[in-house]
């Protein structure tokens, strides 16, 4: 199936999954297009993992119509797994297995597999190939799991809470890795509870809360839909200056606050910061530490759910 946005590789309709009396996921529907990085973001327990594992065919939904690469995850379980790559939120490898052994082993499960030596190189694991998996750091282990998810040269890659528990540096280098995966022509579906990760990495984001999708769009559109204002914050060299009269006339400015030498200009529009800086310079008002504060996905979540996103 092809739409204006491209070929649909994953289609989920009316997904519902309960565990006993707890409803984990209720009426979730969305489509993922070929070549995009699609993310489900939301707090722990929102239903992200349940959803992704139903798509992978690892869990049985109570009700749904799911299609992945034109296959039904239930009926074509094994056929589907040959074409997708999976990194699970919680899983492990055999005790006392070495990195290269794990790759060699997993490669043997598929009818076609990629050159895992090259994969190790690409993931920065070449010097760890003969190390025991158990002895690796958290970031290195995640890289091995990413390698295993790529070992069959899959068309769709699922990454579930890939960067949870990693330090910021490891997280950033994993983001680069995910972008590389996309560049190599694969579709990536990931879940995260880091709003920043979704915002910086993904083409489209489904915000999930209490088992439902509360919003789905590109991060930019989601943020814009808030209609929230950009804040431009700066300090004046002299606290006796009163620049507000001169700034009021600028297009898009809605409000100006000044406390001592600190000024906050509220407004909308992409030109806002430039206009404010121009106005200040042309009036000869000296300022420092100017920065803009944009609304982000955290604000979107806050607005949609009425509460802060908690990890």
């Amino acid at each position: 199936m092809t739409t204006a946005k491209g070929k649909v590789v994953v289609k989920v309709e009316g997904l519902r999954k309960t565990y006993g009396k707890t409803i984990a996921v209720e009426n979730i529907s969305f489509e993922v297009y070929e070549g995009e990085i699609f993310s489900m973001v939301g707090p722990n327990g929102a239903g992200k993992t349940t959803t992704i594992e139903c798509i992978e065919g690892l869990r049985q939904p109570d009700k749904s119509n799911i299609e992945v690469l034109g296959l039904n995850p239930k009926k074509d379980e094994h056929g589907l797994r040959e074409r997708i790559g999976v990194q699970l939120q919680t899983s492990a490898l055999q005790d006392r297995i070495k990195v290269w052994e794990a790759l060699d082993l997993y490669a043997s499960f598929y009818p076609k597999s990629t050159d895992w030596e090259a994969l190790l190189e690409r993931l920065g694991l070449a010097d760890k190939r003969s190390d025991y998996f158990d002895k690796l750091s958290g970031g290195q282990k995640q890289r091995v799991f990413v390698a295993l998810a790529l070992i069959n040269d899959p068309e769709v890659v699922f990454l579930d809470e890939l960067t949870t528990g990693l330090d910021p540096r490891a997280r950033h280098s994993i983001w680069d890795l995910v972008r590389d995966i996309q560049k190599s022509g694969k579709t990536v579906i990931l879940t995260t509870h880091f709003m920043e990760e979704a915002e910086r990495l993904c083409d489209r984001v489904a915000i999930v809360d209490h088992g439902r999708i509360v919003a789905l769009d590109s991060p930019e559109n989601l943020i814009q839909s808030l209609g929230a204002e950009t804040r431009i914050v700066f300090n004046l060299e002299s606290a006796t200056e009163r620049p507000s009269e001169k700034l009021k006339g600028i297009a898009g400015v809605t409000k100006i606050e000044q406390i001592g030498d600190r000024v906050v200009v509220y407004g909308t529009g992409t030109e806002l910061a430039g206009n404010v800086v121009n106005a200040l310079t042309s009036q000869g008002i000296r300022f420092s530490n100017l920065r803009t504060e944009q609304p982000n996905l955290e604000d979107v979540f806050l607005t949609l759910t009425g509460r802060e996103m908690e990890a």
Partner: protein
Amino acid sequence: MRGLKKLTLIELKTFLRNPTGAFFTIIFPLMLILVFGSIYSNTPGETFGEYGIVDVYVPSFTGMIVGISALTNLNTDIASAREKGILRRLKATPLRPLTILTAKITLVFSMTSIAMILMIIAGKLVFGLRFNGNPIEVVAAFALSSFSFFAFGLVVASIMPNVRAAESFGFILLFLMLFLSGVFVPFEIVPDAVQQVAQVFPMTHVTTLMRGLWIGQSLVDHMKEVVVLLGILVAGVLISAKIFRWE
């Protein structure tokens, strides 16, 4: 069964890298036969007629060897692969469940066989082990005992909620059987009442069968044991196929 060869090889490698497991399975029975043989010697006496204690212990220890493999090795291995998420990760590949099971059973049967062979060689070389059975029937009985116990171990692995439970239950059951099923304490010196009760343990049938075949009785003389062990094998496979859990 794509992946079977590599998976079996990895199972073997990681097994041998765990010295305690490898020791307990392979070396422990060998060590016991050397210790018991040295203490009592293998001279025929009143208790066992024309046979010595080593001639009785070697076939009896079959029960111990298959018991250790099935109840301390196979069942905890599967329970732990499930608990840690190793099985979950494997499930996310096209690998078939039967392939995983075949790899594990192949490994555990190889180790069981090695333990058995080492014990027999040591018995022969050190104590002049006597053997009057039909080798083919003895091998068949050994294989039946092994697979019957593996099926039993699989059921234990599926029933137990976690590794600790599987481990504890396996050990208790193993030691109970080692003492009551004629392995450590030969049937000749066990009261009749205890022998009657011990009929409920699968290991009792292994000991009876192996001891009988060892001194020249045939499988036909032991139809009861054969049927019981076959029954455990079939029931174990059916039950574990029904209740097997990936996570």
